């Protein structure tokens, strides 16, 4: 960060930066995985008691996921 180049004393700067940060979250969120695996069972999800939900899309080639 460059000294004196960010108008830290300007409340509008902070307002605009918060909005920009929210926008950045909106950009990044679709790229993040929807569930995190637990350490005990890397292939399980947090809802491991529920029946396994199929993936959003099933695209396989002869029953196998494509390479």
């Amino acid at each position, binding site marked *: 960060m460059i000294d004196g180049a960010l108008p830290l004393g*300007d409340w509008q700067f902070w*307002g605009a930066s918060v909005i*920009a940060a929210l*926008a950045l979250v909106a950009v990044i969120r*679709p790229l993040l995985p929807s569930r995190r695996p637990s350490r005990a069972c890397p292939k399980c999800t947090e809802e491991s008691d529920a029946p396994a939900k199929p993936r959003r899309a*099933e695209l396989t080639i002869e029953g196998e996921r494509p390479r």
Partner: protein
Amino acid sequence: MRRPPRIALLGNPNTGKSTLYNRLCGLRTRTANFPGSTTEHQVGACALNAETDAEIIDLPGVYSLMLEIPESRLCRDCLEGRIADRRPDVALLVLDATNLIRNLQFAASALHREMPTVIAINMADVARRRGLSLDERAASRELGVPVIAISARTGEGIDRLREALALAAATEGPRHQPLRPLPRSEVGSREAVRWAADVFAEIASHGRGDADDTATLHDRLDEAFTHPIMGLFVFAATMAAMFGAIYWLAQYPMDAVDSLFAWIGTGVEAVMGPGALRELLVSGVIGGLAATLVFLPQIALLFFLLALLEDSGYLARAAFAVDRVMRRVGLPGQAFMPLLSAHACALPAIMSTRLIPNPRDRLATILVCPFMSCSARVPVYALLTSLLFVNAPLLAGLAFAGCYLLGALAAFVTAKMLRTTALRGPSTPMVLELPEYRLPSVRTALAVAWERALLFLRNAGTVILSIAIVMWWLSAYPKSEADPASDALRERAAVIASSAPDEAASLESEAARLDERKQQAGSFAGQLGSALEPIFAPMGLDRQLTVAVLTSFLAREVFTTTVFVLVGAGAEANGEDTSTLETVRTARRDDGTPLFTVPASAALLVFYVLAMQCLPTVVLVARETGSWRWALAQLSFMSILAYIAAFATYRMLA
């Protein structure tokens, strides 16, 4: 509060299910993703009567519930309650009155499920014109469920259908039994055909109607539309007319969107005092909204016209005409619809690949869709071809068309490569029902266009707007001090203000432009551009163009806005405005040489044809293929191909 009854709408393809769905639900429709389902569904709200609103799930058209294809499985899952953990309360079967023997067999397989069912025999008006009369009461007795003859197109019988659905949803207890036992074997078996013929004989009778000369006419039309040479010619002419109509018609709403947002921006600037929030609003929010909404007219128009062509029955024939060509590059005939729609936007195009039954074919189509030049590339092509061919609109137009051809060529070559390497394997031969030729329904086409437009807004709109806001912030900070040269210009302007006001104004503008340029160079975005400039220098790009290209990797729409800001034309500048073009054409690099040289402009043009620059598309590909590997492989391949091609172009012309 009692939850609204859920109605599952199902039937064979080409029975007018979608027309009926739109007739029942109108605009009260949304796309939902139920737990337990791997696809999205259209779900609508329909008022059955004054007290009852029902939820209608539009299921895909299937020839049989027992086929091992995703669409049939989906229908079975829905009817058996595996979607959203709830069985539908009522099954609404749509049969085609002009093809009853086959449709009755489908009805029998659905009736085996023993759930409250209402049957709508659609196209009753067409059947009547052909001299076929239907006895609804006899049909209800035979099948053991309410049967209503309707015309979804004209609205005939719809009110009675609503009443029947309300009654079916409210009635509990044992159902009526069909008059004769339902066939046990599958649709198409001898038992099922015989059963259907017997039922048909009881419920329908032939009388006098319009003479059926249509078979010969249909044969002739089919011959023309599927002919190896004539069929392709008709297809090419139809597509040329369609795209010509889109670009001609869309310019009016696009200009309106541009003007509206320019007016809003001016209004905001007048009302709000200067500061970061006003800049954010004008350049980030309003600019981002404008960048999103400006493409809606083209997208909506393309899907409207495609829906009309499909409803007319022509597109199924066109699929066979292009199948021969597509097979040579390893793509199925069914891929031509997604590839066509990708010219508006790759997002709905990729979603429509679900209709391609073979997984390899589908994957190959998904991976090459982004090569088709979408609406977002149009402003980039327009700007760069105008810069390349100054005062030569014909050549600029030819170059424009050349970009489309280059994209299609890259798509076909890549498809061929994929099908001989990573996706090697046999294709599924295309078997298609050829629906009857008919006058297309404008109402249905409007509903399709509306749905696709909403899909685009939902998937891309928020992302593009967010990117515009983030890019504004990265370009606005950190703040730089004024350029010393601009101070000198301002001093000179002050001196000559009274004696030569025009020249003074010109000096002020130049001073503002120098300050803007210094601000851009010193901002986070500019510093990133400087850091990565060596990578793009072989393509002929400088720091400024590197920033423009980098920012457009998330959404190509951002390129022209970034360029206008960089050269001081303003973010709301219009690429067709001659003064803006002149500003861009005369813009300079840091070393004083022209920014847009011929080799650099040509290299940029080739880059934008081939590069994958759409974050929403990358995300959707990952979702549809079930793996980030394919999405990232596609992104990498297209980026590398674009880079190499742009580099080669620059070197050839430099």
